[in-house]
């Protein structure tokens, strides 16, 4: 009786300027620093109970180091190791805390797109910022945008169908929406484990690419407030507050100081395990991505990290 993969646990991103990025993620985005190593900074959102959801690692280039999903039970790591090995995917195993402070027991492997995927269990619990007895609904004195939690990650792959098949067949994700080209092949897919429209999504692009990672906000008003905060701090806004057709979510996109794209997201809908996927056609791709604008800026397709 296990839930297998529950949700996105964390992303580790490469940043060429660790101090600048730490200042941005803590002061503007409003995450909380929980640990440091020689070349990494560990961050979490205020309502997350575990040690980290974003890790910044100093590196000469930007982009995604890996993405990590939380599993419900430690035995799920064995279960997925066997499944992966059965389809000849090499798996590396790490003991708890071996990969860094607060880190759970983990396995790592490559997706067909070359992305490093981690599954983990037992990330150190540090609590959210509220007491467990008679808690107020939110902490006072939060800094910056202060989203309550990480929500999803969006990556790029040359072969979206191979990526999607791998996530569905091996990792047991469920397809919620897809954008199909006129010849019927998948241009983008949206996959979930958490009964939301997406925990991960993938769009056609270079293998290993990071399109963005997104934080949850409670509502559209929160997205508007966040845009004020971003503009005040001179953050480059990629897409001002608008709505997606896919996922029905509300969104704003922007870049961290070294060019990794961030998103703030709210909305969506409930997804049953036997949900019939939604299909968008190529002609309606503009509306699928930005429902009000009905067109997608070139930067959205071409700029990634």
């Amino acid at each position, binding site marked *: 009786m296990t*839930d297998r993969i*529950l*949700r996105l646990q964390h992303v580790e991103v490469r940043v060429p300027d660790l101090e600048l990025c730490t200042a941005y993620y803590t002061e503007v985005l409003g995450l909380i620093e929980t640990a440091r190593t020689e070349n990494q900074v560990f961050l979490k959102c205020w309502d997350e109970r575990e040690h980290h959801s974003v890790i910044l690692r100093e590196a000469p280039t930007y982009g995604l180091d890996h993405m990590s999903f939380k599993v*419900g039970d430690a035995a799920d790591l064995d279960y997925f190791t066997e499944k992966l090995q059965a389809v000849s995917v090499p798996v590396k195993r790490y003991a708890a805390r071996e990969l860094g402070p607060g880190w759970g027991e983990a396995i790592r492997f490559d997706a067909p797109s070359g992305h490093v995927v981690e599954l983990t269990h037992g990330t150190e619990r540090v609590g959210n910022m509220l007491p467990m007895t*008679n808690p107020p609904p939110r902490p006072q004195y939060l800094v910056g945008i202060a989203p309550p939690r990480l929500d999803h990650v969006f990556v790029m792959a040359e072969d979206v169908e191979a990526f999607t098949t791998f996530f569905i067949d091996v990792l047991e994700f469920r397809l919620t929406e897809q954008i199909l080209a006129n010849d019927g092949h998948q241009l983008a897919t949206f996959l979930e484990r958490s009964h939301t429209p997406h925990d991960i999504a993938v769009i056609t692009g270079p293998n290993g690419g990071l399109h963005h990672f997104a934080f949850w906000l409670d*509502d*559209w008003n929160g997205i508007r407030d966040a845009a004020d905060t971003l503009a005040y701090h001179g953050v480059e806004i990629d897409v001002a507050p608008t709505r997606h057709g896919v996922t029905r979510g509300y969104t704003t996109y922007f870049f961290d100081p070294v060019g990794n794209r961030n998103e703030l997201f709210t909305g969506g809908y409930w997804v049953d395990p036997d949900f019939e996927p*939604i299909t968008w056609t190529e002609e309606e791709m503009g509306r699928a991505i930005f429902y009000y604008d009905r067109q997608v800026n070139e930067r959205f397709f071409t700029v990634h990290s």
Partner: protein
Amino acid sequence: MGILRLAHVDVRTPDLDLSAAYYTEVMGLRQVLRTEDAVYLKCWDEEDHHSLRLRYEARTGLDSFTFRVEAEDDLHELEKRVEAYGCPTTRVSAGEAVGQGESVRFEVPSGQVMELVWDLEKTGNALGKHNPAPVPPPHTLKGIAPPRMDHMLVNAEEVGEANTFFTEVLGMRLTEQLLDGNGHQLGIWLAGRTNSPHDIAIVNGPNGALHHWAYWLDDWDHIRKAADTLAYNGVQIDQGPTRHGVTRGNTIYFFDPLGIRNEVFTGGYWVDPDTEIITWTEQEFGKGLFYYENVISQRFLRMHT
């Protein structure tokens, strides 16, 4: 494996026309079927046949409430466990109930009739699966028009016993609890697999009673608009718009024309299966119920169906 989410609530009404008028015109549900003695209703984003059945009967009351299980095999497993606990179960064959296949019914320890089902007739939401708009055509929406039902609250004389049944037998997860000075549970909030603070709550009160069921709205702004709609239509508001301490949700409580309490709800937080339980003490329960007012409303505690 286990309980997924609330599927439908079945209630009795002595005035079927009046109740149906309220739920379609004010609440803004869609009538999907009317038989000689019953009206079946659903929200615009629900894919199942219905989420509410109103049945004519001289006295108002709760017929039953139905939860969907996570997979088909769970029905048999949970049936065995409920029997083993000492609650007799009844199988309802496919075709006996409108809009669903085989189900299992039993009385929970506090006397309400609960039903479990996997096979729900999927009739689709108002949007479809092909390049769907994020909302239904505006002229098709009336009243409050929530996208879906969210949770319910029933009463029990022995809340501790209800907790044992719902967590140990049905495998639901306790997220929050209200304790009296002696450490006895006066209220419990339980999640299925929705990762939300509650799919059902149980608060001390007479066995067999229904306290309310709730519809989801997307944000606080919709809660405010719902209050306008309720006031315009002369609906008796019980409490709100306000905020709960328990669940952190934003809320309004109000009564349907025959005195059944309804709620509109938004907010809450993400719940992992291993999240620690939040505890409310009796002296802080005013804030737990209504965080801004900090009062324990006797009407709220004593009025039920």
